């Protein structure tokens, strides 16, 4: 009986070990996920609160070609020495990397308004965050539908 018990214990141990090994297998995905976007945002804002407002992020709601998408960000701020935007950060959910662009500016800008062209790998949510000189963070989000993806396709 004692032998049987050890055999059973051994088998149970072996199966749970195998099960353990299977679950430990790494799940690799080349793409950023909403979680990695949150992590990238955390890196910038730290423990500060993120509030909605002041920022206007504009992207076309439907994009035919993700290789070049016009994007503009404007932040409502007088841009004076006492009240200005210190930085604008843009993040994405599903490109291989969560960061899109990080901009530093100050009172010499006169107006916190920027425009550029971005790549989008998939239909996703884009978020712009503005850092004010008083240490507060404001954000805006836009959902974009992309029909032809960028970044991952191979050259022909």
């Amino acid at each position, binding site marked *: 009986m004692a032998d049987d018990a050890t055999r059973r214990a051994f088998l149970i141990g072996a199966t749970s070990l195998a099960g353990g090994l299977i679950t430990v297998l790494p799940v690799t995905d080349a793409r950023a996920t909403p979680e990695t976007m949150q992590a990238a945002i955390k890196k910038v804002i730290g423990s500060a609160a993120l509030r909605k407002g002041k920022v206007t992020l504009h992207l076309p709601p439907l994009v035919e070609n993700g290789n070049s998408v016009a994007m503009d960000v404007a932040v409502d701020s007088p841009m004076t020495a006492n009240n200005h935007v210190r930085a604008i950060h843009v993040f994405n959910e599903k*490109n291989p990397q969560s960061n899109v*662009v*990080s901009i530093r500016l100050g009172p*010499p*800008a006169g107006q916190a*308004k*920027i425009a*550029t062209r971005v*790549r989008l790998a998939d239909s996703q949510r884009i978020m712009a965050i503005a850092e004010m000189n008083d240490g507060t963070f404001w954000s805006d989000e836009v959902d974009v539908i992309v029909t032809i993806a960028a970044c991952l396709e191979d050259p022909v």
Partner: protein
Amino acid sequence: MARALINVPAKAKKGEIITIKTLISHEMETGYRHDNVGKAIPRNIITQFVCTYNGLEVFRADLFPAIAANPFITFQTVATASGKIEFKWTGDNDFAQTESVNITVE
């Protein structure tokens, strides 16, 4: 030398907010693509763009692979004095380019 296009008004009134548009020809290879034999194409992007107005930094952008090829950046600045506005792009593989324009402020 990459070709750069810069649009700055030649003349401005003092205190006026001017719009600066810049575009530089660069492939902005993401580093996430593969060639026809499956080999990874190394990343080659512009990582930073800085604009200085008479020596004072007015705008700085850190670029990531999510910026489209031929980076186009538009921003604003207050016309304070006549002088030189300088633009500098730096990136992978020791990419560095500087351009400048003159502005007259009345």
